[in-house]
């Protein structure tokens, strides 16, 4: 049963978001390779920009603004706009276009074409995200990354380090987002079959957390192998979020600057004198920003990564608390008890022990009764004819086999304790155990069943 909770609806957005981020990351790896190996310059666009292009196309289809099957014109127009944005991202292109030579600008920035591809991929993720399609994207996309990686590493030349870093970050983003999307899509599909809404159990949280752990486990040694800065893995996992935050901050600052300019103009119109803004020359005279090396920043970067890890853990914990509170608030009585119990065997060190002899699964005698029973077992083991028959009383048995006064005394103790209901003293019990020991060491009984020599 699908949930109608608002929080669950928001959670439902995770699946398309991760799927679109994975699409953007895959395209970003290709773009980085093309830019570095063919155009021989650092990339201008990243995962976030391609993901936004895919997301815009997906949202347009989902909202019903465009329908590629019905109205191809609007669809092509949207793709054209996306391609234009990607193409115009390059300052050189913008200059040529503004300079009236758009034809010269056409071959300049391949990012435009890839934005167009991102838009087309986004349309595919608009309505229904099939778990098989997302899994296929990851399973085929991961080995397919070898092509842009080979292209980039072979053709990057002096930009090889730039390529490695940018492609690594985008690849990590692709793997992380792709696996999370595949997992969530599969959970949703399973939920449809079983009637369990994935948003209401903890599988999704486990999936996200597990994928991040696995990516960290393979990404950190890989980044060291590639000689990348320590935060590369973290940027791969959280990069799109950080970029989004960056764009929001830029947007906020731009808005603040606009408001400040307006306010300045208004204040001046009222005759209020404000300090003049810094001229370019004055800005140039400001102390130059220091340039740091990776080695100088290593400690800070490690702290930064640790901070992010802590942040993730806190988010996970808060999400769990939130889910539990919501569950309690909803008053749902699931009739379930959940607990974490580690089985004993997992903590126990197995000590090899010598195998027990057959038929010796008894404990050592500790009183007269157990001593008599142990003596009976010993006698029966030595000679079957000396075993006590079911109909025999202990006294008759002792008289029949004539095993000596020790057995006579033992059976008397036994009869007193078992049949007479008497509590034997510790001394009597000790003496009985001693009799059992002597009986045990005694000579073997004659072989009643054997033929005479």
């Amino acid at each position, binding site marked *: 049963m699908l949930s109608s909770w608002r929080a669950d609806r928001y959670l439902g957005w995770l699946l398309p978001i991760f799927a679109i981020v994975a699409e953007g990351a895959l395209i970003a790896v290709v773009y980085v390779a093309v830019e570095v190996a063919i155009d021989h310059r650092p990339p201008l666009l990243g995962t976030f920009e391609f993901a936004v292009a895919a997301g815009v196309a997906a949202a347009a289809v989902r909202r019903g603004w465009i329908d590629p099957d019905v109205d191809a014109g609007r669809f092509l127009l949207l793709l054209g706009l996306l391609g234009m944005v990607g193409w115009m991202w390059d300052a050189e292109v913008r200059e040529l276009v503004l300079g009236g030579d758009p034809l010269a600008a056409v071959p300049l920035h391949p990012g435009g074409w890839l934005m167009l591809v991102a838009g087309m991929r986004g349309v595919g993720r608009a309505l229904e995200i099939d778990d098989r399609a997302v899994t296929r994207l990851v399973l085929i996309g991961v080995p397919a990354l*070898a092509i842009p990686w080979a292209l980039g590493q072979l053709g990057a030349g002096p930009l090889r380090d730039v390529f490695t870093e940018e492609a690594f970050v985008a690849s990590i983003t692709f793997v992380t987002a792709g696996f999370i999307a595949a997992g969530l899509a*599969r*959970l949703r599909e399973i939920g449809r079959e079983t009637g369990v809404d994935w948003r209401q159990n*903890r599988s999704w949280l486990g999936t996200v957390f597990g994928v991040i752990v*696995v990516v960290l486990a393979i990404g950190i040694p890989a980044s060291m192998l590639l000689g990348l800065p320590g935060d590369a893995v973290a940027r791969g996992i959280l990069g799109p979020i950080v970029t989004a935050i960056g764009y929001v901050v830029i947007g906020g600052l731009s808005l603040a600057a606009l408001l400040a300019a307006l306010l300045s103009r208004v204040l001046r119109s009222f005759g209020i004198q404000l300090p003049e803004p810094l001229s370019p020359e004055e800005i140039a005279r400001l102390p130059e920003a220091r340039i740091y090396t990776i080695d100088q920043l290593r400690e800070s970067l490690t702290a930064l990564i640790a901070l992010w890890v802590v942040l993730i853990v806190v988010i996970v914990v808060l999400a769990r608390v939130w889910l539990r509170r919501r569950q309690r608030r909803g008053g749902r009585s699931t009739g379930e*008890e959940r607990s974490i119990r580690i089985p004993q065997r997992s903590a126990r060190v197995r000590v090899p022990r010598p195998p027990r002899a057959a038929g010796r699964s008894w404990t050592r005698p500790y009183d007269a009764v157990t001593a008599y029973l142990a003596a009976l077992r010993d006698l029966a083991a030595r000679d079957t004819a000396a075993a006590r028959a079911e109909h025999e009383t202990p006294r008759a048995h002792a008289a029949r086999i004539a095993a000596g006064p020790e057995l006579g005394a033992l059976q008397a103790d036994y009869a007193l304790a078992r049949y007479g209901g008497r509590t034997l003293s510790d001394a009597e019990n000790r003496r009985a155990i001693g009799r059992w020991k002597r009986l045990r060491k005694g000579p073997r009984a004659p072989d009643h069943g054997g033929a005479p020599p």
Partner: protein
Amino acid sequence: MSGWTLVGLAMVIVGAAIGAPGLLLIGGLTLLSRWLTTLWSRYGLNDVTFERRLATDRAVWGDEVPMEVEVWNQKLLPVPLLVADDHVTEELRVVGRRLGASDRPGLGTLQHAWSLLWYERVVRHLAIDARRRGVFEFGPVRLTVSDLFERGTNSEERELPGQLLVRPRTVAIRSSERARAPLGSNRTTMSLFPDPSRFAGVRAYQPGDPQRRIHWRATARLGEPVSRRYEPVHERNILLAVDLQTVPGPHWLMLFDDDQVEALCVAAASLARRFLRDGSACGLLLGTQLAGGRRWAYLPPATAPGQLGRLEDVLARVRPIVSLPFEQLLGVVPRRLPPGGTLVVLSARDPTPYVDELRRLSRSGYEVRHVAMGPDRAGHRASAVRAGIPGGEADLAPDWREADALVVAG
């Protein structure tokens, strides 16, 4: 090993050989993705325990039987989705649950789905609504774990047999005439034979009393000889023969009226309880398919403390498919029940097909009584009486579910 795994392996080897860490990374990621996709179908079911616990293995119609289902993931690998299809008899009713379809005839599936963290143990509390008499079988259970990143699954079947026996309800017996035992036979108050196990006091010694009957202690205390006095033997051997064919015609047509079958079972259990309470030895004879494969059941009359439970267990196992004609079933009575015993025939159809057999048993020294049930009970009783068999009627009003008493007349 799949093709993509080979590709990943090749990339790792080539990357390591030519010193291309990028290729090494992609090869590693390829291997990782392949490993992750089949992780759960390979290891998901390892160290997963499933248990089903019923609060009792016997219940009475109308009870609610608590049931616990426990699943425990005893390993570090979390299980994103574990589905347990517990096969149960399809008539079972679980409160708040609906049984799913099963590929096995006569069985349904009680489906559970969980997501389990590392070492997580979940106990689910359920309740079985015993609103249907019968034997309810549990097991086997099929555990299925699904891969998280692919559509692969892995299943395992575990036997875990279980059984719940739901006995028929019993109601009070009410006779329409006072001072008469049910079914009209007067209880014996005197007998030629005393029951030496039922001490009733002492009386003055009478010449001829055996020495062992003298109560020596009381004699010494009173100063005159007294003998022990015992309750007279008044025990009856009653065999309840239940005719479970509820629709006229040949038995092999296997037609039945479900409500009448249930009413017969309720009446039989209620009568048996009353007979046993009154000190009679009560047995049961019926010819129908029983859960477990038997075609008929005979429980000899006894007064043992567990006799009512045994009788109710047999009635719980009754299925409404008649396995042999009732007249043929009555043929076993002379071989099993000593003459002088009482045969109470409980039926919801016209007794004409087997009335000759009843007459023969009556002539053989059995006290035969016919108790008619069902909507045409008056006519059926008249048929029995016309054939010379003392007859009575029993009614569960308004029906076997709601009735608070079995009203016996005649």
